[in-house]
């Protein structure tokens, strides 16, 4: 959960019986990312998490890959405010169970996606190249992402991304985008945490459109198997790689 601490809003994990303090639900901390770091340090018992719809979807991606045991998680559903939905350009804002807040309508559209979709491929590339030139390789987009959980990150392999180079080149962003294509639940944390304010959520949204169109697949459903984890005939791979 999030609560008021030192005049700021802080993520917090408390034990049973501990004072919860002043809970804040207006600042969108990515609690699932935080949960992933501390999960192994909480060896037993249940963990309750304030979950927005995007968090719920992130959890689905994690539990179906066995990174987190679904039975140990208690979801406290948070319906985001209108303002937050607008800020996130969120198309799917209401969790399956609402415990906090009132359900609100999704944001109508992502203006930037629509504008970019109308451009020629050359102009679109020009737009993204200009954006990526601001990248300072902080790895915030991977660090804060709830569904970025490989043990060895492909972006840290020199075959794909040469070390030291800043900005890191188009491949950095393209590899990441395609790597996340069947997992990204469009929480927008990559964009919010990007110091250069590269519209990464828009990039994800545009790729998600392709995924939906080509494979009819949308990440975030606990039951749906990623087309990347199926045989060419569409059957689930037996020896599937948890990282894919």
């Amino acid at each position, binding site marked *: 959960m999030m609560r008021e601490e030192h005049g700021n809003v802080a993520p917090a994990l408390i034990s049973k019986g501990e004072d919860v303090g002043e809970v804040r639900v207006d600042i969108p901390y990515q609690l699932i990312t935080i949960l992933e770091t501390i999960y192994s340090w909480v060896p037993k018992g249940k963990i309750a998490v304030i979950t927005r719809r995007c968090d719920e979807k992130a959890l689905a991606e994690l539990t179906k890959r066995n990174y987190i045991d679904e039975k140990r998680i208690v979801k406290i559903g948070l319906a985001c405010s209108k303002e937050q939905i607008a800020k996130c350009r969120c198309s799917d804002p209401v969790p399956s169970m609402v415990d906090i807040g009132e359900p609100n309508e999704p944001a109508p559209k992502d203006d930037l996606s629509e504008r970019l979709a109308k451009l020629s491929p050359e102009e679109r590339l020009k737009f993204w190249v200009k954006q990526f030139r601001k990248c*300072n390789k902080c790895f915030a987009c991977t660090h804060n992402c709830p569904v970025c959980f490989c043990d060895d990150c492909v972006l840290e392999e020199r075959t794909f991304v040469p070390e030291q180079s800043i900005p890191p080149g188009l491949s950095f962003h393209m590899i990441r985008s395609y790597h996340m294509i069947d997992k990204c639940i469009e929480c927008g944390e990559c964009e919010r945490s990007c110091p250069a304010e590269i519209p990464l959520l828009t990039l994800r949204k545009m790729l998600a459109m392709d995924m939906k169109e080509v494979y009819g697949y949308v990440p975030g459903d606990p039951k749906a198997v990623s087309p990347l984890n199926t045989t060419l005939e569409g059957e689930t791979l037996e020896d599937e790689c948890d990282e894919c």
Partner: protein
Amino acid sequence: MSVKHVLTTCPYCGTGCNFFLQVADGRLVGVVPCKTDEISLGRLCIKGYNAHAFVQHPDRLKHPMIREGGQLKQVTWEQAMDRIVKEVTRIREKFGPDSIAVLASAKCTNEENYLIQKLARAALGTNNVDHCARLCHASTVSGLLYSFGSGAMTNTIPEFDNAECILITGSNTLEAHPMIGARMLRALDKGAKIIVVDPRETPLSRISHLSLHQRPGTDISWINGMIKIIIDEGLVNEEFVKQRTTAFDELKEVVKDYTAEKVEATTGIPREKLVEAARLYAKTEKAMIAYAMGITQHSNGTNLVKAMANLAMVTGHIGKESTGLNPLRGQCNVQGACDAGGLPNLFPGYQRVDDPESKAKFEKAWGVQLPGNPGLTLTCAMKEATAGKLKAMIIFGENVMISDPDLGHLEEAIEGLEFLVVADIFPSETVQKAHVVLPAGCYAEKDGTFTSTDRAIRLLRKAVDPPGEARADWVIACDLGKRLGSPGFDFSSPAEVMAEMASLTPQYAGIDFDRIDKQVLRWPCPTKEHQGTRILHTQKFTKGLGVFAPVQHAPPMEEPSEEYPFILTTGRNLFQYHTGTMTRRSPKLEREAPEPYVEINSSDAKRLGINDGERVAVSSKRGSITLKARVTDRIILGSIFIPFHYAEAAANRLTNAALDPIATIPELKVCAAKVAKA
């Protein structure tokens, strides 16, 4: 099971980003950005995200050690402290208190620096206390005290967002101050014009509006040239100059000789580009200047800073929102270490040690007689040590064996000391030379405050215990002060130390831990009700009228010669930090920049038959190092660049210890060098 998220301040550059350290059962497991922090805005750079990685590294110093038979041997605190007291007392009695020097630390908190300078002044009886600001912004302190009366950023970090023009020189902002660089990107996205003047291409200059490349060591020439263009084109803010400043005529007289032709010949900057930059800066209402080591680390660094101040004053771009002259300070607490009096000529709050009134004030408060003569600067102390006059040093958290210029001579100086005490967190190159080693606590292991580059006083909150027997520097300083028989070292917490410091430091008078626990306060904050000061010099300068300094271009102390045809300049990269003691123990950072390199222009490389990635020997009059060549067009012809992070090819083996006469800052940014295939 216990999991905590502890809000604290980043230990790297001076931006002062706050973040949460994730602690699970006493282990640091990660970093989470603080979304509501008004400085970082919930964003961090790669160093910030990895700021937990070195803290519990197995190499941490865990026990005090004493050198015996050439080897450092583990001892108890009692034994280590006894040895220090015995040796220091002996040396002081034999050679006098000024035969001892103390180095405070830009890595330590304000409270610790306050105690360390008090230790030197009150317990040892010497003003020989200094720290690495001598190597970075000593010339900012001396230059801006002269021009404005206050040696710090005039404006604040968030104001970069709304600047319409930003002139950046001698600062590779995106690499050295990434989150300030991010603010500049935001301004750029909003349409601001960015001008970068740098001998190298930097990640920011490549996307800037105007990128000017000067020859290293020619900065006063282009700055005076710009001022002349501004005067000639009638772009002077006459009203500001008339009402707020003095000595403009003297400046006019000096800059009249800096014609665009002459400036082009000296600096290599095409005249039309300089004219464009001058017009852009002068005509834009919200125009900010940011500068760093490229300006300060010269043998005429103080004059260079004064020249920058002239430029800001002539256009009146000072004292208002999103304007000003902004030295970007490069360590988490280098601003605070200066504020807290870690300087040989100044008490806390920039009160002069040779001013009888200030001296009387501190004597009364501390209950001791104090020396009235300014002490030795770090660089002068090293020279005195070489000459055999300085006998002992107590160094808190500085790795002089990598960070200081002309390491060959420095090594002799350090080895010539009768007694060297080093308190540090890792077995640094300097620790290897010590007679007594004290294991210290790092930023994550103590409470205290850092003052960031924009004068904001930010809290550190203890997240984990120091390893083994290590102790926070404030505990060490208090213990040492008491053992040396001085009154005034009875503190039970850093908050108590701040209370004393605030009572003696006018800029900090309104600061206490309770207040800054919840809000960002910037000095001057003279009372407990005061909300701090964002913008300096709004109605008048700290010293009254701003003073124009008529400064002339002077060539660097060492110019390229037939034998040493290149100009060597040094600096940082994004992934490493200073002498690498912390970043090189952080796997993700070390992975990105694991080995030393020299950047050389592709035409120069071709001429010398050097290929990218080949090993080369780079030499100056003072030494030689071997490292990889990085062949690039991102540095101008005739200049080479080496980051100073790497002990295995320490750039400072080559650099020149020529000093600015006022600030005694060394000329780390320019020396003559040669390159040959290894």
